[in-house]
Protein backbone atom coordinates (compact mmCIF):
# COMPACT_ATOMS: atom_id res chain seq x y z
CA UNK A 1 0.00 0.00 0.00
CA UNK A 2 1.14 3.51 -0.78
CA UNK A 3 0.30 4.58 2.73
CA UNK A 4 3.09 2.35 4.08
CA UNK A 5 5.71 3.88 1.80
CA UNK A 6 5.73 7.63 2.20
CA UNK A 7 9.13 7.86 0.50
CA UNK A 8 7.75 6.17 -2.62
CA UNK A 9 4.91 8.71 -2.73
CA UNK A 10 7.34 11.59 -2.61
CA UNK A 11 8.75 10.53 -5.97
CA UNK A 12 5.51 11.43 -7.68
CA UNK A 13 3.44 14.45 -6.66
CA UNK A 14 -0.12 13.62 -5.62
CA UNK A 15 -3.02 14.42 -7.96
CA UNK A 16 -3.94 17.27 -5.62
CA UNK A 17 -0.42 18.74 -5.79
CA UNK A 18 -0.77 18.80 -9.58
CA UNK A 19 -4.36 20.09 -9.61
CA UNK A 20 -4.03 22.80 -6.94
CA UNK A 21 -1.45 25.37 -8.16
CA UNK A 22 -3.45 26.54 -11.18
CA UNK A 23 -6.57 27.18 -9.11
CA UNK A 24 -5.28 30.50 -7.79
CA UNK A 25 -2.60 31.16 -10.44
CA UNK A 26 -4.00 31.89 -13.93
CA UNK A 27 -0.51 31.65 -15.48
CA UNK A 28 -0.24 28.00 -14.39
CA UNK A 29 -1.27 25.49 -17.07
CA UNK A 30 -4.15 23.05 -16.58
CA UNK A 31 -2.93 19.67 -15.27
CA UNK A 32 -2.02 17.15 -17.99
CA UNK A 33 -3.97 14.34 -16.30
CA UNK A 34 -7.26 16.22 -16.61
CA UNK A 35 -9.47 15.29 -19.58
CA UNK A 36 -12.93 15.70 -21.03
CA UNK A 37 -15.06 12.80 -22.38
CA UNK A 38 -13.43 10.61 -25.09
CA UNK A 39 -10.08 12.21 -24.30
CA UNK A 40 -11.25 15.71 -25.29
CA UNK A 41 -9.29 18.79 -24.21
CA UNK A 42 -10.31 20.09 -20.83
CA UNK A 43 -8.75 23.54 -20.48
CA UNK A 44 -12.10 25.30 -20.38
CA UNK A 45 -13.41 22.60 -18.07
CA UNK A 46 -10.49 23.06 -15.66
CA UNK A 47 -11.15 26.80 -15.85
CA UNK A 48 -14.58 26.18 -14.31
CA UNK A 49 -12.72 25.18 -11.13
CA UNK A 50 -10.36 28.17 -11.36
CA UNK A 51 -13.34 30.44 -11.71
CA UNK A 52 -15.35 28.76 -8.92
CA UNK A 53 -12.42 29.08 -6.53
CA UNK A 54 -11.57 32.71 -7.29
CA UNK A 55 -15.15 33.97 -7.60
CA UNK A 56 -16.19 32.06 -4.48
CA UNK A 57 -13.43 33.60 -2.39
CA UNK A 58 -14.11 37.09 -3.76
CA UNK A 59 -17.77 36.54 -2.81
CA UNK A 60 -16.63 35.58 0.68
CA UNK A 61 -14.71 38.86 1.02
CA UNK A 62 -17.69 40.80 -0.37
CA UNK A 63 -19.92 39.18 2.26
CA UNK A 64 -17.56 40.22 5.05
CA UNK A 65 -16.86 43.73 3.70
CA UNK A 66 -20.16 45.07 2.26
CA UNK A 67 -19.49 48.70 3.24
CA UNK A 68 -16.08 48.62 1.53
CA UNK A 69 -17.71 47.20 -1.60
CA UNK A 70 -20.43 49.86 -1.50
CA UNK A 71 -17.83 52.62 -1.23
CA UNK A 72 -15.56 51.35 -4.01
CA UNK A 73 -18.25 49.95 -6.30
CA UNK A 74 -18.50 46.27 -7.26
CA UNK A 75 -16.00 46.34 -10.13
CA UNK A 76 -13.25 48.08 -8.12
CA UNK A 77 -13.91 45.83 -5.13
CA UNK A 78 -13.75 42.59 -7.10
CA UNK A 79 -10.51 43.62 -8.83
CA UNK A 80 -8.96 44.52 -5.47
CA UNK A 81 -10.28 41.34 -3.83
CA UNK A 82 -8.98 39.20 -6.73
CA UNK A 83 -5.43 40.41 -6.05
CA UNK A 84 -5.84 39.56 -2.39
CA UNK A 85 -7.41 36.14 -3.03
CA UNK A 86 -4.55 35.14 -5.33
CA UNK A 87 -1.84 36.43 -3.00
CA UNK A 88 -3.44 35.29 0.26
CA UNK A 89 -5.93 32.44 -0.16
CA UNK A 90 -7.61 31.12 3.00
CA UNK A 91 -5.82 28.72 5.31
CA UNK A 92 -8.93 27.76 7.31
CA UNK A 93 -12.03 26.01 5.97
CA UNK A 94 -14.12 28.46 8.01
CA UNK A 95 -14.90 31.23 5.53
CA UNK A 96 -15.97 33.67 8.24
CA UNK A 97 -12.34 33.58 9.39
CA UNK A 98 -11.11 34.53 5.92
CA UNK A 99 -9.96 38.04 5.06
CA UNK A 100 -8.32 39.00 8.35
CA UNK A 101 -5.40 40.44 6.33
CA UNK A 102 -7.66 42.26 3.89
CA UNK A 103 -7.72 45.63 5.76
CA UNK A 104 -3.89 45.73 5.75
CA UNK A 105 -3.94 44.78 2.06
CA UNK A 106 -6.36 47.66 1.34
CA UNK A 107 -4.05 50.02 3.23
CA UNK A 108 -1.22 49.17 0.83
CA UNK A 109 -3.36 48.79 -2.31
CA UNK A 110 -2.08 51.16 -4.96
CA UNK A 111 -5.47 52.18 -6.34
CA UNK A 112 -7.03 52.82 -2.91
CA UNK A 113 -4.49 55.41 -1.77
CA UNK A 114 -6.97 58.28 -2.24
CA UNK A 115 -9.30 56.55 0.26
CA UNK A 116 -7.07 56.43 3.35
CA UNK A 117 -10.07 55.70 5.59
CA UNK A 118 -11.05 52.57 3.63
CA UNK A 119 -8.79 50.20 5.60
CA UNK A 120 -10.21 51.34 8.97
CA UNK A 121 -13.74 50.95 7.62
CA UNK A 122 -12.75 47.38 6.72
CA UNK A 123 -11.31 46.86 10.23
CA UNK A 124 -14.68 47.78 11.73
CA UNK A 125 -16.44 45.36 9.36
CA UNK A 126 -14.01 42.59 10.37
CA UNK A 127 -14.70 43.30 14.05
CA UNK A 128 -18.44 43.30 13.31
CA UNK A 129 -18.21 39.73 11.91
CA UNK A 130 -16.04 38.57 14.83
CA UNK A 131 -18.63 39.96 17.26
CA UNK A 132 -21.38 38.20 15.30
CA UNK A 133 -19.72 34.79 15.76
CA UNK A 134 -18.24 35.40 19.25
CA UNK A 135 -19.21 33.29 22.25
CA UNK A 136 -22.49 34.27 23.90
CA UNK A 137 -22.32 35.79 27.38
CA UNK A 138 -24.72 37.91 29.43
CA UNK A 139 -23.36 41.46 29.72
CA UNK A 140 -22.52 43.05 33.08
CA UNK A 141 -25.56 44.47 34.85
CA UNK A 142 -25.21 48.12 35.96
CA UNK A 143 -26.60 46.96 39.36
CA UNK A 144 -23.45 44.91 39.98
CA UNK A 145 -21.36 48.02 39.46
CA UNK A 146 -23.65 50.14 41.65
CA UNK A 147 -23.21 47.67 44.53
CA UNK A 148 -19.44 48.27 44.78
CA UNK A 149 -18.59 50.38 47.86
CA UNK A 150 -17.40 53.85 46.82
CA UNK A 151 -13.98 53.36 48.46
CA UNK A 152 -13.33 50.24 46.33
CA UNK A 153 -14.26 51.72 42.93
CA UNK A 154 -10.59 52.18 42.00
CA UNK A 155 -9.97 48.44 42.54
CA UNK A 156 -12.50 47.20 40.00
CA UNK A 157 -11.09 44.91 37.31
CA UNK A 158 -13.45 44.31 34.40
CA UNK A 159 -13.78 41.08 32.41
CA UNK A 160 -14.27 42.02 28.79
CA UNK A 161 -17.19 40.51 26.86
CA UNK A 162 -16.14 37.92 24.20
CA UNK A 163 -17.76 40.03 21.45
CA UNK A 164 -16.32 43.39 22.52
CA UNK A 165 -13.60 45.03 20.44
CA UNK A 166 -12.13 48.51 19.94
CA UNK A 167 -11.06 49.84 16.53
CA UNK A 168 -9.19 53.15 16.55
CA UNK A 169 -9.05 55.38 13.48
CA UNK A 170 -7.49 58.70 12.51
CA UNK A 171 -10.44 59.11 10.14
CA UNK A 172 -14.24 59.30 10.62
CA UNK A 173 -14.38 55.52 10.07
CA UNK A 174 -17.38 54.93 12.35
CA UNK A 175 -19.54 57.39 10.40
CA UNK A 176 -18.33 56.00 7.07
CA UNK A 177 -19.04 52.43 8.23
CA UNK A 178 -22.51 53.34 9.54
CA UNK A 179 -23.67 55.20 6.44
CA UNK A 180 -22.50 52.42 4.11
CA UNK A 181 -24.04 49.47 5.95
CA UNK A 182 -27.61 50.69 5.38
CA UNK A 183 -29.64 51.03 2.22
CA UNK A 184 -30.32 54.41 0.69
CA UNK A 185 -28.48 57.64 -0.01
CA UNK A 186 -25.32 58.36 1.95
CA UNK A 187 -25.45 61.80 3.54
CA UNK A 188 -22.32 63.98 3.33
CA UNK A 189 -19.86 63.50 6.21
CA UNK A 190 -20.33 66.04 8.99
CA UNK A 191 -16.67 66.16 9.99
CA UNK A 192 -13.22 64.76 9.29
CA UNK A 193 -12.52 64.12 12.97
CA UNK A 194 -10.84 60.90 14.08
CA UNK A 195 -13.33 58.30 15.31
CA UNK A 196 -12.80 55.24 17.52
CA UNK A 197 -15.33 52.40 17.44
CA UNK A 198 -16.61 50.13 20.18
CA UNK A 199 -18.07 46.92 18.72
CA UNK A 200 -20.26 44.80 21.01
CA UNK A 201 -22.95 42.13 20.88
CA UNK A 202 -24.67 41.94 24.27
CA UNK A 203 -27.33 39.59 22.85
CA UNK A 204 -28.18 38.95 19.17
CA UNK A 205 -27.56 42.36 17.60
CA UNK A 206 -24.06 43.58 16.86
CA UNK A 207 -23.68 47.28 17.79
CA UNK A 208 -20.98 49.66 16.53
CA UNK A 209 -20.71 52.80 18.67
CA UNK A 210 -18.62 55.90 18.49
CA UNK A 211 -16.38 56.10 21.57
CA UNK A 212 -16.05 59.49 23.29
CA UNK A 213 -12.61 61.16 23.35
CA UNK A 214 -10.15 59.11 25.41
CA UNK A 215 -12.57 56.17 25.52
CA UNK A 216 -10.51 53.89 23.30
CA UNK A 217 -7.28 54.24 25.29
CA UNK A 218 -9.23 53.77 28.51
CA UNK A 219 -11.03 50.66 27.26
CA UNK A 220 -7.85 49.13 25.85
CA UNK A 221 -6.18 49.28 29.26
CA UNK A 222 -9.36 47.94 30.91
CA UNK A 223 -9.33 45.02 28.46
CA UNK A 224 -5.71 44.47 29.48
CA UNK A 225 -6.95 43.67 33.02
CA UNK A 226 -5.75 46.83 34.79
CA UNK A 227 -7.45 48.15 37.94
CA UNK A 228 -9.94 50.92 37.23
CA UNK A 229 -7.86 53.40 39.25
CA UNK A 230 -4.80 52.80 37.10
CA UNK A 231 -6.87 52.93 33.90
CA UNK A 232 -8.41 56.24 34.83
CA UNK A 233 -4.99 57.75 35.44
CA UNK A 234 -3.85 56.58 31.96
CA UNK A 235 -6.95 57.95 30.30
CA UNK A 236 -6.78 61.30 32.02
CA UNK A 237 -3.12 61.60 31.07
CA UNK A 238 -4.09 61.11 27.40
CA UNK A 239 -7.30 63.17 27.46
CA UNK A 240 -7.40 65.76 30.27
CA UNK A 241 -11.15 66.35 29.81
CA UNK A 242 -11.80 62.59 30.21
CA UNK A 243 -15.28 61.86 31.59
CA UNK A 244 -14.67 58.77 33.72
CA UNK A 245 -18.23 58.14 34.97
CA UNK A 246 -19.75 58.82 31.55
CA UNK A 247 -17.31 56.48 29.81
CA UNK A 248 -17.90 53.61 32.22
CA UNK A 249 -21.67 54.00 32.06
CA UNK A 250 -21.57 54.04 28.25
CA UNK A 251 -19.37 50.94 28.01
CA UNK A 252 -21.47 48.98 30.50
CA UNK A 253 -24.62 49.95 28.63
CA UNK A 254 -23.02 48.84 25.34
CA UNK A 255 -22.28 45.41 26.83
CA UNK A 256 -18.49 45.66 26.77
CA UNK A 257 -18.05 43.64 29.99
CA UNK A 258 -19.37 40.46 31.55
CA UNK A 259 -18.22 40.55 35.19
CA UNK A 260 -16.10 42.54 37.63
CA UNK A 261 -13.83 41.61 40.48
CA UNK A 262 -12.01 43.72 43.00
CA UNK A 263 -8.22 43.66 42.64
CA UNK A 264 -5.60 44.39 45.30
CA UNK A 265 -4.11 47.83 45.52
CA UNK A 266 -0.44 48.00 44.65
Amino acid at each position, binding site marked *: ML*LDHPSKEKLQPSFAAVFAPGL*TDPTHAAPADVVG*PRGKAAIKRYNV*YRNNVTAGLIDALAATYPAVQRITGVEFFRAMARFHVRAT*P*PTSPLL*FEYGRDFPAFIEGYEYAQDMPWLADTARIERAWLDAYHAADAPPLSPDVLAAVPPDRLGDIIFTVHP*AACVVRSEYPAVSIFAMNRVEGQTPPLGSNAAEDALITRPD*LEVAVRLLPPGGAAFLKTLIGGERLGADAATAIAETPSFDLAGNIAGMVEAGAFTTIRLGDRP
Partner: protein
Amino acid sequence: MSAITRREDVHPARRLRFPGLPVADLAGTSFKHEHLNAILAENALAGFFEVHAENYMGAGGPPHRALERIRRDYPVSLHGVCMSIGGPEPLDRAHLARFRALVDRYEPALVSEHLAWSTHETTYFNDLLPLPYTQSTLAHVCAHIDEVQDAIGRRILIENPSTYVAFASSTMSETEFIRQIARRTGCGLLLDVNNVFVSATNHGYAALDYLSDFPLAEVGEIHLAGHAEQSDDEGERLLIDSHDGPVADAVWKLYEIVISRCGCIPTLIEWDSKIPAWPILRAEAAAAQAILDRFTSARAVGGGHAA
Protein backbone atom coordinates in the same frame (compact mmCIF):
# COMPACT_ATOMS: atom_id res chain seq x y z
CA MET B 1 -7.06 6.98 21.43
CA SER B 2 -6.47 10.13 19.44
CA ALA B 3 -6.73 13.57 20.98
CA ILE B 4 -9.70 14.54 18.88
CA THR B 5 -11.98 11.99 20.45
CA ARG B 6 -11.43 13.24 23.99
CA ARG B 7 -14.54 14.86 25.48
CA GLU B 8 -12.71 17.85 26.93
CA ASP B 9 -11.52 18.92 23.50
CA VAL B 10 -15.08 19.46 22.36
CA HIS B 11 -16.33 23.01 22.64
CA PRO B 12 -18.30 23.31 25.90
CA ALA B 13 -21.42 24.57 24.16
CA ARG B 14 -24.67 25.20 25.97
CA ARG B 15 -26.34 21.81 25.96
CA LEU B 16 -30.00 21.76 25.06
CA ARG B 17 -32.12 18.64 24.87
CA PHE B 18 -33.68 18.09 21.47
CA PRO B 19 -36.43 15.68 20.46
CA GLY B 20 -35.36 12.65 18.38
CA LEU B 21 -37.52 13.46 15.38
CA PRO B 22 -37.77 10.88 12.58
CA VAL B 23 -36.77 11.92 9.08
CA ALA B 24 -37.76 8.91 6.96
CA ASP B 25 -40.35 9.58 4.24
CA LEU B 26 -39.80 13.35 4.52
CA ALA B 27 -38.75 16.04 2.08
CA GLY B 28 -36.81 19.03 3.39
CA THR B 29 -34.89 22.10 2.32
CA SER B 30 -31.65 23.92 2.96
CA PHE B 31 -32.04 26.15 6.02
CA LYS B 32 -31.40 29.83 5.31
CA HIS B 33 -31.58 32.36 8.14
CA GLU B 34 -33.66 34.77 6.09
CA HIS B 35 -36.41 32.13 6.11
CA LEU B 36 -36.43 31.59 9.88
CA ASN B 37 -39.46 33.75 10.69
CA ALA B 38 -41.46 32.41 7.76
CA ILE B 39 -40.67 28.83 8.85
CA LEU B 40 -41.65 29.55 12.46
CA ALA B 41 -44.95 31.00 11.21
CA GLU B 42 -45.74 27.69 9.44
CA ASN B 43 -48.49 25.56 10.86
CA ALA B 44 -47.95 21.79 10.92
CA LEU B 45 -45.17 21.80 8.31
CA ALA B 46 -43.76 18.31 7.88
CA GLY B 47 -40.16 18.24 6.78
CA PHE B 48 -36.56 18.66 7.78
CA PHE B 49 -33.79 21.19 7.31
CA GLU B 50 -30.19 20.79 6.23
CA VAL B 51 -27.34 23.09 7.22
CA HIS B 52 -23.74 23.37 6.10
CA ALA B 53 -21.76 22.39 9.18
CA GLU B 54 -19.07 25.06 8.64
CA ASN B 55 -21.59 27.89 9.05
CA TYR B 56 -22.14 26.77 12.65
CA MET B 57 -18.52 26.45 13.71
CA GLY B 58 -18.34 29.88 15.29
CA ALA B 59 -18.42 30.07 19.09
CA GLY B 60 -21.88 31.61 19.39
CA GLY B 61 -24.18 34.30 18.08
CA PRO B 62 -27.22 34.36 15.77
CA PRO B 63 -26.31 31.24 13.71
CA HIS B 64 -26.47 28.92 16.72
CA ARG B 65 -29.55 30.65 18.09
CA ALA B 66 -31.36 30.15 14.76
CA LEU B 67 -30.31 26.49 14.45
CA GLU B 68 -31.33 25.74 18.05
CA ARG B 69 -34.73 27.24 17.35
CA ILE B 70 -35.23 25.19 14.18
CA ARG B 71 -33.93 22.02 15.83
CA ARG B 72 -36.57 22.25 18.57
CA ASP B 73 -39.32 21.67 15.99
CA TYR B 74 -37.67 19.84 13.10
CA PRO B 75 -35.15 17.11 12.34
CA VAL B 76 -31.88 18.54 11.09
CA SER B 77 -29.37 17.16 8.60
CA LEU B 78 -25.75 18.18 9.15
CA HIS B 79 -23.96 18.47 5.81
CA GLY B 80 -20.21 19.04 5.83
CA VAL B 81 -18.71 20.74 2.80
CA CYS B 82 -15.00 21.01 3.53
CA MET B 83 -13.63 17.95 5.36
CA SER B 84 -11.52 17.27 2.23
CA ILE B 85 -12.17 13.52 2.53
CA GLY B 86 -11.09 13.00 -1.08
CA GLY B 87 -7.66 14.58 -0.62
CA PRO B 88 -4.40 12.66 -0.18
CA GLU B 89 -3.37 14.59 2.93
CA PRO B 90 -4.36 13.80 6.52
CA LEU B 91 -7.68 15.24 7.71
CA ASP B 92 -7.62 18.53 9.63
CA ARG B 93 -8.01 17.24 13.20
CA ALA B 94 -9.21 20.57 14.55
CA HIS B 95 -11.89 20.66 11.88
CA LEU B 96 -12.93 17.10 12.65
CA ALA B 97 -13.24 18.00 16.36
CA ARG B 98 -15.48 20.96 15.47
CA PHE B 99 -17.60 18.68 13.26
CA ARG B 100 -17.94 16.15 16.04
CA ALA B 101 -18.94 18.90 18.51
CA LEU B 102 -21.82 19.88 16.18
CA VAL B 103 -22.98 16.26 15.92
CA ASP B 104 -22.95 16.04 19.72
CA ARG B 105 -24.72 19.35 20.19
CA TYR B 106 -27.50 19.16 17.60
CA GLU B 107 -28.09 15.38 17.41
CA PRO B 108 -28.79 15.54 13.66
CA ALA B 109 -31.00 12.93 12.01
CA LEU B 110 -28.56 12.75 9.10
CA VAL B 111 -24.82 13.47 8.83
CA SER B 112 -23.08 13.73 5.47
CA GLU B 113 -19.93 14.82 3.63
CA HIS B 114 -18.63 14.87 0.06
CA LEU B 115 -16.50 12.64 -2.12
CA ALA B 116 -14.25 15.60 -2.95
CA TRP B 117 -11.32 17.60 -1.64
CA SER B 118 -11.01 21.29 -0.85
CA THR B 119 -7.72 21.76 1.00
CA HIS B 120 -4.18 21.17 -0.21
CA GLU B 121 -1.17 21.85 2.00
CA THR B 122 -2.19 25.05 3.80
CA THR B 123 -4.66 26.41 1.25
CA TYR B 124 -8.44 26.03 1.52
CA PHE B 125 -9.97 26.40 -1.97
CA ASN B 126 -13.63 26.69 -0.97
CA ASP B 127 -14.73 24.34 -3.76
CA LEU B 128 -15.56 20.66 -4.10
CA LEU B 129 -12.65 19.45 -6.23
CA PRO B 130 -12.51 16.15 -8.15
CA LEU B 131 -10.23 13.17 -7.64
CA PRO B 132 -9.03 10.32 -9.85
CA TYR B 133 -10.54 6.93 -9.05
CA THR B 134 -7.62 4.58 -8.35
CA GLN B 135 -6.63 2.01 -5.71
CA SER B 136 -4.42 4.64 -4.12
CA THR B 137 -7.13 7.31 -3.79
CA LEU B 138 -9.60 4.64 -2.66
CA ALA B 139 -7.27 3.74 0.22
CA HIS B 140 -6.99 7.37 1.30
CA VAL B 141 -10.71 8.06 1.05
CA CYS B 142 -11.60 4.94 3.05
CA ALA B 143 -9.05 5.79 5.75
CA HIS B 144 -10.55 9.29 5.99
CA ILE B 145 -14.12 8.01 6.22
CA ASP B 146 -13.06 5.51 8.92
CA GLU B 147 -11.50 8.38 10.85
CA VAL B 148 -14.61 10.57 10.59
CA GLN B 149 -16.96 7.73 11.58
CA ASP B 150 -14.72 6.85 14.54
CA ALA B 151 -14.66 10.48 15.66
CA ILE B 152 -18.41 11.10 15.50
CA GLY B 153 -19.37 7.60 16.63
CA ARG B 154 -21.92 7.06 13.87
CA ARG B 155 -22.36 6.29 10.21
CA ILE B 156 -21.85 9.09 7.73
CA LEU B 157 -23.40 9.48 4.29
CA ILE B 158 -20.98 10.26 1.46
CA GLU B 159 -22.25 12.27 -1.52
CA ASN B 160 -21.50 11.52 -5.17
CA PRO B 161 -19.86 14.57 -6.80
CA SER B 162 -20.73 16.69 -9.79
CA THR B 163 -17.60 17.06 -11.92
CA TYR B 164 -16.44 19.02 -14.94
CA VAL B 165 -13.27 17.04 -15.72
CA ALA B 166 -12.18 13.41 -15.57
CA PHE B 167 -8.66 12.05 -14.91
CA ALA B 168 -6.73 10.03 -17.47
CA SER B 169 -5.19 8.15 -14.53
CA SER B 170 -8.53 6.80 -13.21
CA THR B 171 -8.69 3.02 -13.23
CA MET B 172 -12.29 2.50 -12.14
CA SER B 173 -15.68 4.08 -12.65
CA GLU B 174 -17.17 6.48 -10.11
CA THR B 175 -19.94 4.01 -9.24
CA GLU B 176 -17.40 1.24 -8.66
CA PHE B 177 -15.32 3.59 -6.48
CA ILE B 178 -18.39 4.56 -4.44
CA ARG B 179 -19.48 0.93 -4.09
CA GLN B 180 -16.01 0.06 -2.75
CA ILE B 181 -16.12 2.96 -0.27
CA ALA B 182 -19.47 1.81 1.12
CA ARG B 183 -18.33 -1.81 1.30
CA ARG B 184 -15.00 -1.10 3.00
CA THR B 185 -16.09 1.57 5.49
CA GLY B 186 -19.75 0.71 6.08
CA CYS B 187 -20.66 4.32 5.34
CA GLY B 188 -24.01 5.20 3.81
CA LEU B 189 -24.48 7.24 0.64
CA LEU B 190 -26.08 10.53 -0.17
CA LEU B 191 -27.32 10.30 -3.74
CA ASP B 192 -27.39 13.74 -5.36
CA VAL B 193 -29.60 13.19 -8.39
CA ASN B 194 -28.74 16.60 -9.80
CA ASN B 195 -25.05 15.72 -9.57
CA VAL B 196 -25.74 12.49 -11.46
CA PHE B 197 -27.45 14.45 -14.21
CA VAL B 198 -24.76 17.15 -14.30
CA SER B 199 -21.87 14.65 -14.43
CA ALA B 200 -23.63 12.39 -16.95
CA THR B 201 -24.18 15.33 -19.28
CA ASN B 202 -20.65 16.64 -18.78
CA HIS B 203 -18.97 13.28 -19.37
CA GLY B 204 -21.28 11.94 -22.04
CA TYR B 205 -22.84 8.91 -20.34
CA ALA B 206 -26.44 8.03 -19.53
CA ALA B 207 -27.67 9.06 -16.09
CA LEU B 208 -29.84 5.93 -15.99
CA ASP B 209 -26.80 3.70 -16.57
CA TYR B 210 -25.04 5.44 -13.69
CA LEU B 211 -28.08 4.91 -11.45
CA SER B 212 -28.43 1.23 -12.36
CA ASP B 213 -24.80 0.75 -11.39
CA PHE B 214 -25.07 2.83 -8.18
CA PRO B 215 -25.40 0.92 -4.86
CA LEU B 216 -28.90 2.27 -4.19
CA ALA B 217 -29.38 0.00 -1.15
CA GLU B 218 -26.87 2.15 0.78
CA VAL B 219 -28.57 5.48 0.03
CA GLY B 220 -29.77 7.26 3.19
CA GLU B 221 -30.56 10.66 1.70
CA ILE B 222 -31.24 12.23 -1.69
CA HIS B 223 -30.31 15.72 -2.84
CA LEU B 224 -32.11 17.64 -5.57
CA ALA B 225 -30.97 21.04 -6.83
CA GLY B 226 -30.90 23.37 -9.78
CA HIS B 227 -28.00 23.68 -12.21
CA ALA B 228 -26.74 26.23 -14.73
CA GLU B 229 -25.54 25.75 -18.28
CA GLN B 230 -22.24 26.74 -19.96
CA SER B 231 -20.24 25.25 -22.82
CA ASP B 232 -16.99 23.26 -22.84
CA ASP B 233 -13.80 23.42 -24.93
CA GLU B 234 -15.62 22.21 -28.06
CA GLY B 235 -18.73 24.30 -27.49
CA GLU B 236 -20.69 21.34 -26.13
CA ARG B 237 -23.11 21.69 -23.22
CA LEU B 238 -21.38 21.80 -19.83
CA LEU B 239 -23.62 21.84 -16.76
CA ILE B 240 -22.61 23.67 -13.60
CA ASP B 241 -23.84 22.53 -10.19
CA SER B 242 -24.97 26.00 -9.15
CA HIS B 243 -27.76 25.42 -6.57
CA ASP B 244 -29.28 28.72 -7.65
CA GLY B 245 -32.62 27.75 -9.15
CA PRO B 246 -35.45 25.22 -9.30
CA VAL B 247 -34.85 21.50 -9.92
CA ALA B 248 -34.80 20.68 -13.66
CA ASP B 249 -37.55 18.52 -15.15
CA ALA B 250 -35.06 15.84 -16.20
CA VAL B 251 -33.80 15.62 -12.60
CA TRP B 252 -37.36 15.23 -11.28
CA LYS B 253 -37.83 12.33 -13.74
CA LEU B 254 -34.65 10.61 -12.53
CA TYR B 255 -35.75 11.18 -8.94
CA GLU B 256 -39.10 9.45 -9.53
CA ILE B 257 -37.27 6.50 -11.04
CA VAL B 258 -34.96 6.28 -8.00
CA ILE B 259 -37.88 6.42 -5.55
CA SER B 260 -39.82 3.81 -7.49
CA ARG B 261 -36.75 1.54 -7.36
CA CYS B 262 -35.66 1.93 -3.78
CA GLY B 263 -38.60 3.31 -1.84
CA CYS B 264 -38.92 6.38 0.36
CA ILE B 265 -35.64 8.13 1.13
CA PRO B 266 -35.39 11.49 2.93
CA THR B 267 -35.05 14.04 0.15
CA LEU B 268 -33.58 17.51 0.33
CA ILE B 269 -33.96 20.51 -1.97
CA GLU B 270 -30.65 22.41 -2.01
CA TRP B 271 -30.78 26.09 -2.86
CA ASP B 272 -27.66 28.02 -1.83
CA SER B 273 -27.48 31.15 -3.95
CA LYS B 274 -30.04 33.55 -5.47
CA ILE B 275 -32.14 32.29 -2.58
CA PRO B 276 -35.86 32.67 -3.26
CA ALA B 277 -38.67 33.64 -0.89
CA TRP B 278 -39.62 30.82 1.48
CA PRO B 279 -42.89 29.81 -0.32
CA ILE B 280 -40.92 29.01 -3.50
CA LEU B 281 -38.45 26.79 -1.67
CA ARG B 282 -41.30 25.20 0.30
CA ALA B 283 -43.12 24.43 -2.98
CA GLU B 284 -40.04 22.59 -4.31
CA ALA B 285 -39.98 20.45 -1.16
CA ALA B 286 -43.74 19.88 -1.48
CA ALA B 287 -43.18 18.56 -5.02
CA ALA B 288 -40.64 16.05 -3.69
CA GLN B 289 -42.97 15.17 -0.80
CA ALA B 290 -45.81 14.47 -3.28
CA ILE B 291 -43.60 11.93 -5.07
CA LEU B 292 -42.64 10.29 -1.78
CA ASP B 293 -46.30 10.21 -0.66
CA ARG B 294 -47.45 8.75 -3.96
CA PHE B 295 -44.94 5.96 -3.56
CA THR B 296 -45.97 5.37 0.07
CA SER B 297 -49.68 5.11 -0.79
CA ALA B 298 -48.98 2.91 -3.83
CA ARG B 299 -47.00 0.62 -1.54
CA ALA B 300 -49.85 0.62 1.02
CA VAL B 301 -52.40 -0.30 -1.66
CA GLY B 302 -50.13 -2.91 -3.21
CA GLY B 303 -49.21 -4.28 0.20
CA GLY B 304 -45.66 -5.03 -0.88
CA HIS B 305 -42.33 -3.48 -1.66
CA ALA B 306 -41.16 -2.05 -4.90
CA ALA B 307 -38.66 -4.11 -6.81
